[in-house]
């Protein structure tokens, strides 16, 4: 059966990915102040990357990004760039699994990390086996409840909103730019993972703008979230907090009913699991495209196993990650995720300026 997605569903997947990847973490929070401005600036770079991938897909309908890379840059250069992109996808998949498990370890404190990882990877493998069409339908079902829960979670933070925590604005412009770079790296440009499912989108040319709409909705919500979290926690706590949004919700109390954050567990669980699923799927599709294999399903379990072991091996502790690895990963993921589509786009524009691309219409 031919698998397909609609632009609307792809937009939903981007929405779920962006929220799931950084909703509770607020990666740019280490700058303390003006986090929401950094988040806004970071989202512009993500929009640029998304636009490049969509434009490339429109130029080469039915071809996957790795084929486009080889067509535009030649086999050797294309393969080198594809290898770098594939390694970055693997790194992002490892990080997403690690971050999800670190968060779950707070709630399930007595369950070993390896067991949580095993359950998650086996679960995501099952979902990836269901196929891309099923992923689109699941996104159809999940997006609106997630949106409602998210708005609700922001509304319950309003009693904690303290305007003095937001001022002075623009007091350290350099720190804001630094936060914007880190904010762009995680989560905005990670949507490069979506490039691997774009060949399956059947109405990209007609309805492609819906993908941009959902990206902008997600970015807008993340900026508002950053604003609320900074106003609720204040810059000092925000700077040291591991899960600022979660910590902010934990401060909310309704008379004797405390643990309000558990009410939003469905929100955290659904968005973070969609991130792990999407990164696992992207890795599988990346391997399929790289080795030109007909059926991607053969890679699902081995890839899940590889992501699990590398995640355990490379990222042994949350503390070490915060101190040593968080600020260096950017040097690997940011250049590849930005330069990969940029170089391919420029090469494609230059090479096919006069010769129109044949529309194959076939999904790899």
């Amino acid at each position: 059966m031919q698998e397909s997605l609609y632009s609307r569903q792809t937009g939903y997947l981007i929405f779920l990915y962006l929220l799931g990847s950084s909703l509770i973490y607020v990666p740019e929070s280490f700058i303390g102040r003006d986090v929401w401005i950094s988040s806004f600036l970071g989202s512009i770079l993500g929009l640029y990357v998304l636009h490049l991938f969509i434009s490339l897909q429109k130029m080469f309908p039915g071809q996957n990004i790795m084929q486009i890379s080889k067509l535009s840059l030649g086999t050797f250069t294309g393969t080198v760039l594809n290898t770098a992109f594939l390694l970055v996808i693997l790194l992002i998949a490892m990080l997403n699994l690690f971050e999800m498990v670190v968060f779950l370890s707070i709630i399930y404190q007595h369950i070993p990390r390896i067991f949580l990882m095993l359950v998650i990877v086996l679960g995501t493998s099952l979902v990836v086996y269901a196929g891309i069409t099923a992923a689109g339908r699941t996104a159809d079902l999940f997006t609106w409840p997630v949106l409602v829960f998210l708005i609700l979670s922001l509304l319950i933070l309003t009693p904690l909103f303290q305007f003095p925590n937001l001022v002075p604005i623009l007091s350290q412009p350099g720190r804001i730019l630094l936060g914007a770079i880190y904010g762009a790296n995680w989560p905005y440009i990670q949507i490069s993972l979506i490039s691997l499912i774009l060949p399956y989108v059947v109405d990209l040319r007609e309805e492609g703008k819906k993908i941009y709409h959902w990206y902008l909705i997600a970015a807008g919500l993340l900026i508002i979230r950053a604003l609320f979290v900074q106003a609720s926690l204040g810059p000092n706590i925000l700077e040291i907090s591991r899960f600022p949004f979660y910590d902010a919700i934990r401060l909310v109390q309704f008379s004797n009913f405390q643990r309000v954050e558990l009410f939003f567990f469905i929100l955290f669980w659904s968005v973070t699991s969609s991130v792990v699923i999407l990164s696992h799927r992207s890795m599988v599709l990346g391997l399929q495209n790289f080795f030109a294999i007909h059926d991607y399903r053969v890679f699902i379990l081995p890839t899940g196993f590889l992501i699990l072991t590398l995640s355990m091996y490379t990222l042994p502790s949350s503390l070490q990650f915060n101190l040593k690895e968080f600020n260096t990963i950017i040097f690997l993921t940011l250049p590849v995720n930005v330069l990969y589509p940029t170089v391919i786009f420029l090469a494609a524009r230059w090479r096919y300026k006069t010769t129109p691309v044949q529309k194959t219409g076939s999904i790899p």
Partner: protein
Amino acid sequence: MFYSMLIFIFLIVLVEGRQTVKNKAWKELTLITAITLIAVFYACDYYYNLNFMPNFNYLLHKLQPAAKSLEIFFAF
């Protein structure tokens, strides 16, 4: 880690291995075996604490000075 490795190997052989051999898809079988073997090596290395596999962490730690420089550059 040891039990998760066994579970995965069992599932890979059961779900993918049999079908791939049956279809005589040798390219797929080679790739599955290669990926699984890499994962097995890393799992054994982690479980027995051998440190013989290349660790991606070393690269990340080597980039620490660059991260510091970036922070200093934007400290205004």
